């Protein structure tokens, strides 16, 4: 219930994404800790998968590297468990494609996630229409299932997503895959979020393409939170720790000042 609690007490969120096991187990654990210490409000833990169709080159490389390094589901859950001990209050969401969940069995997967201190899931290849089984299993473990909305979701789909998504909705900023962009389609996004607000009262965080303080600030004015992924993943991959800390801090401040 940490996610629900968070939104009761807060207006804006920095949602940070990092791949578990990238570039290796220990390094990713350190990276997650930096993200949480420097101002991340909600953490997304990436679960490596062989075929990440919604991801651009930066996060694709992270998936591939983690798998090559031998990262298995038990390592991902272990990382979540260790983060949970050190950060008892922060909402942690697993971001994973559906097949690893399906293959393990939705109930089994939910049980293991729950006991690792995970609060819920974001599954980029699972629309609400296909989410019934996982939703059921999440409910019985008290986990949240956050669905994604996109610029191509019309009124009917936005209502559907809103009604099924737990405690918040993840709005994809553009048509495309994950990865830092110089320019974001702000005008269209404004219209998208206006429509969303007229249909849904749940908090909405916006992700895909966001990497700078300026972008974060602009997006935070339109939404309830900003997701930064590829940018942090790239810094970790390049071993730029100082820059990572500063980047998390400055983006977090930019969001809070809105």
């Amino acid at each position, binding site marked *: 219930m940490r996610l629900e609690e968070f939104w009761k007490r807060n207006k804006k969120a920095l949602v940070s994404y990092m791949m578990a096991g990238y570039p290796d187990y220990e390094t990713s654990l350190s990276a997650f800790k930096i993200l949480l210490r420097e101002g991340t409000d909600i953490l997304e833990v990436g679960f490596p998968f062989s*075929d990440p*169709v919604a991801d651009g080159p930066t996060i694709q490389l992270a998936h591939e590297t983690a798998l090559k390094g031998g990262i298995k589901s038990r390592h991902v859950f272990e990382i979540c468990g260790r983060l949970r001990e050190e950060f008892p209050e922060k909402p942690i969401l697993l971001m994973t494609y*559906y*097949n690893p969940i399906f293959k393990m069995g939705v109930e089994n997967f939910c049980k293991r996630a729950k006991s690792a201190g995970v609060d819920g899931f974001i599954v980029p290849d*699972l629309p609400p229409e296909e989410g019934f089984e996982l939703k059921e299993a999440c409910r019985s473990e008290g986990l949240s299932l956050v669905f994604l909305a996109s*610029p*191509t979701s019309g009124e009917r*789909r936005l209502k559907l997503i809103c009604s099924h998504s737990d405690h918040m909705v993840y709005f*994809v900023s553009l048509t495309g895959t994950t990865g830092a962009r110089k320019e974001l389609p702000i005008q269209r996004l404004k219209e998208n979020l206006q429509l969303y607000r007229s249909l849904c009262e749940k908090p909405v965080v916006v992700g895909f393409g966001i990497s700078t303080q300026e972008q974060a600030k602009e997006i935070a004015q339109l939404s309830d939170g900003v997701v930064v992924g590829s940018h942090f993943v790239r810094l970790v991959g390049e071993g730029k720790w100082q820059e990572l800390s500063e980047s998390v801090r400055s983006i977090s401040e930019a969001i809070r000042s809105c």
Partner: protein
Amino acid sequence: MKYTLPDERGYFGEFGGKFVPETLMYALEELEEAYRRVKEDRSFWEELEYYLKNFAGRPTPLYYARRLTEYAGGAKIYIKREDLLHTGAHKINNTLGQALLTKKMGKKRVIAETGAGQHGVATATACALLGLECVVYMGEEDAERQKLNVFRMELLGAQVCVVKSGTRTLKDAINEALRDWVTNVETTHYIIGSVVGPHPFPMLVRDFQKVIGEETKAQLYELEGRLPDAVVACVGGGSNAMGIFYPFVEHKEVLLVGVEAGGLGIESGKHASSIRGGSVGVLHGMKSYFLQDEEGQILPTHSISAGLDYPGVGPEHAYLFKSGRAKYVYATDEEALEGFKLLSRLEGIIPALEPAHAVLRVVELAKDVGKGGIVVFNLSGRGDKDMWHVMKHIQL
């Protein structure tokens, strides 16, 4: 009982569905709607029929393979000659249909994935014919194996994007095509080449390929006055098999046999038999059988034929297997090469490596069915594209 699958949610029993990023959901709904409309539109089907006949070369013959029949010493073997179609394989049936549908939807850009290059060439051809922009994704390893087809696609005006991620084969070409689609979905139609992917693709591709089975049924009725005892086809994603199986599904007395690519043998782990060697999973928008490890990570595949080198299979095949309506077997690389030689020498027909997988299984089945019986073999493509590759493997 009437066979009416998929259901409204796009499921064949427990298989199928729409497991895609939200951005694509509207495009799938739009495609479903467009297809619903053209289904009732006589002019669409007349136009498609015109091109199938005058451009692609339909109907294809149903040929009595006398010498192969004698060699097998059992049932009569008939070969459905999809290898005689323009561009050399059955793929053109689907690409003409989907390219016309693209025009109906008012989209001007087409993307496609390709393994052996046959679907890529067929898509590039349909796009040239209808004046559509065409981009084809192809794994680096496949582009190497099928250089000639890369050149053909470029000659036809398509842009070929070589995919260097993952296993650099068909699976990764599909991943990259999906990434392009998610980015350009509002202007672009994705012509999937097999009965795979999210609903409505498995249904759509099957419907454009079922002409193979419908013709076969009518031709055999004219030649023999009856249904066949068995129908055999190779299965990668499964479009040529679904095309010839579909009109026979309701005729329970007709045995349907799909032949998967057994690579170096199932036990070696180096193969592409998703049904015989895989388990149920979710990838590329569908729930079906996949080659995967116990953690749900998709495994690399191996097949001598690029067109069958895919770790999944269409959901309708998964259903036909699970329900027991169709039977799935496999043939190894070595058996495919043997079939390749056998058909060349006995019938003067050089098959593509994909249907070459089915040749030995056809011979065995003809023996099992016995004299007085009829076995139909769908020869989905011709072997020209495979010459360089096969030369490395066989000595004459």
